[in-house]
């Protein structure tokens, strides 16, 4: 039972890790990707459509990446090159993404009498490793996206802190003038990190539709993008912190689902469990003090000032 709970926690953590690590990289370069909720939704929709139409989950995930990229590109152009407000632009894109996904879903499939289904990504048991007691079934009997995340965590840490490009990304968020003087295009770096967030956020969205539920609904994301956004803050703009934050969330969500399934509702209202991750964010935001906010987070760069 503990095993299935932990396994579930890790599964629910996968998209949050994709999203929060994407957010960490982008925010380190100075870009708050407030469009993350919309990017998740576009990914979930693109993934579903791609898989449904071709029957191939691989093509579905490619479609999810493409959909996430489109949302991120619009966000990037408006915020970076047209220098508009990041919070405000993100909100517009989130509303628009909801409209576009719902509308195009209708264009493609009309009003189906029964919900359209695709088969969710299969669990892949890694030979040998999955036989380890407790750890095996938890960590090594997951779907492919979870395994990608295992690689993503060290890769993103390495990128940010051990490569010169990572240094450039971090400098772009702290002191864009210096980066500019060094002959590096500040806006190009930022646009790159936003597009990367589009790719990773798109995959995160696809996790919900293609990876887990096997269907698409308009409220499939339901604030999970914002949770990834919050985890980036709580994790102090570091992939390691993001992992820690995500584990806490994944556990909360798994416990909530577990409590509901064993009838915890008779002692506590179900709504308490639903609200738990959000309450937890508030509590953690309040309790953490010394944040290491990138100095130019949310500030558009222009050479004149």
């Amino acid at each position, binding site marked *: 039972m503990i095993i299935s709970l932990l396994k579930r926690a890790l599964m629910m953590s996968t998209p949050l890790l994709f999203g929060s690590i994407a957010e960490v990289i982008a925010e380190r370069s100075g870009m708050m990707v407030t469009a993350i909720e919309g990017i998740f939704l576009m990914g979930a929709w693109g993934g579903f459509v791609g898989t449904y139409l071709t029957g191939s989950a691989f093509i579905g995930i490619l479609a999810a990446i493409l959909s996430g990229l489109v949302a991120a590109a619009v966000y990037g152009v*408006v915020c970076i090159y047209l220098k508009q407000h990041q*919070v405000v632009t993100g909100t517009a894109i989130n*509303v628009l993404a909801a409209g576009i996904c719902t509308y195009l879903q209708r264009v493609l499939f009309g009003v189906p009498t029964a919900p359209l289904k695709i088969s969710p990504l299969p669990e892949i048991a890694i030979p040998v490793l999955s036989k380890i007691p407790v750890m095996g079934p938890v960590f090594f009997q997951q779907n492919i996206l979870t395994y990608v995340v295992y690689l993503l965590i060290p890769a993103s840490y390495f990128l940010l802190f051990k490569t010169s490009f990572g240094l450039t990304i971090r400098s772009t968020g702290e002191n864009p003038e210096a980066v500019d003087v060094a002959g590096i295009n500040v806006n190009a770096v930022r646009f790159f990190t936003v597009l990367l967030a589009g790719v990773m956020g798109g995959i995160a969205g696809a996790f919900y539709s293609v990876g887990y539920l096997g269907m698409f609904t308009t409220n499939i994301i339901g604030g999970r993008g914002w949770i990834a956004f919050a985890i980036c803050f709580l994790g102090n703009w570091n992939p390691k912190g993001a992992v820690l934050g995500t584990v806490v969330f994944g556990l909360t969500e798994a416990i909530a689902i577990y409590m509901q399934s064993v009838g915890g509702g008779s002692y506590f209202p179900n709504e308490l469990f639903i609200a738990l991750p959000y309450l937890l964010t*508030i509590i953690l935001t309040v309790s953490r003090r010394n944040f290491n906010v990138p100095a130019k987070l949310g500030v558009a760069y222009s050479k004149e000032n």
Partner: protein
Amino acid sequence: MNTKVRDLIVTNAAAIIAGLLLSGLMLLLLHINPVEVFVYSINTMFSDKYTMGEVFLKATPLIFTALAFAFTFKANLFNIGAQGQFYMGSIAAIALSLQLDGKVPTAVLLILVCLTAALAGGLMGALIGFLKARFKANEFLVSMMSTYVALAVMNYLLRTFLKESKGEYPQTDAISRSAWLPVIVKGTRLHIGFVLAVLAAVGIWVLLYKTPLGYRIRAVGSNASASRMSGIDSNKIFVAAFFISGALAGAAGFTEVNGVQHMLIQDFNSGVGSAGLGIAILANANPIGIIFASLLFGALNVMGNLMGRMPGVNVPASIVDLMQGFVMLFVIISYFFRHYLENRREKRRLQKGA
């Protein structure tokens, strides 16, 4: 006419038209003639008194939630949680209305309910401001998360204490006619809440630009460290700004419950928060501009509904989100062009001077 005002009108109009054009093109995907649909919906809207009333009706809560966002925005704070404060106001409004229903005169009831709803939203807002002031918590995150918590609280209450006496659906009993906001135009549903919203917008404008508190709020917003040097306690400003912001969103709950729904249901007006934000942007956070921008969003909403009901064609309801999303995005882009136009004019003026 002042060139700045002209720029504002021209660029905003262009943005709105571009947004509608793009939404119209999307209709082609469903093999629907957009011209026909738009002409039909605009014609019906302007020729039918009831439908015109609906535009003002839909604009009413949006004025409040847009003011809520704009007010904290002036202090360079982000209240993304207007939706949650709206829910709190709605819960307070329905709970008190059901209690007082038939026991006190209508006017007394409405005033009490209005104040309570505003207080409920305001306290929710003040809590966010307090967390920001006391713990330096990020108000953007806290306010956003608070909406989901408020939603859970509302769903819980609808299932338990506030559940209808028939006990069938997760919704409250309906309030009797004596607790309704009076209708101001016969033959429509338009109630006095719209007047209240306009008064609130004017009041907020006065508060921001003609009072010491408003001055302090704007001072903290434009330069926090300079205002601290001049002795403004920014912590107090955080709490005050968030209280007023939340109270505005809470008041929207009052106008929606007592003016339109007359009960509380699940998934109640789930878009007023984000639409309010969009409207505040459209109006450049100007309280008077918000009235007009809200009417535009109200009109888009009504047009979307009319399109859906147009005989012979089948326009999906999501067209409303699509229109609002595109209009918001293009308005944001139009800020860039306005800035560009202004710069070019300034450059020419300087060149001439030289």
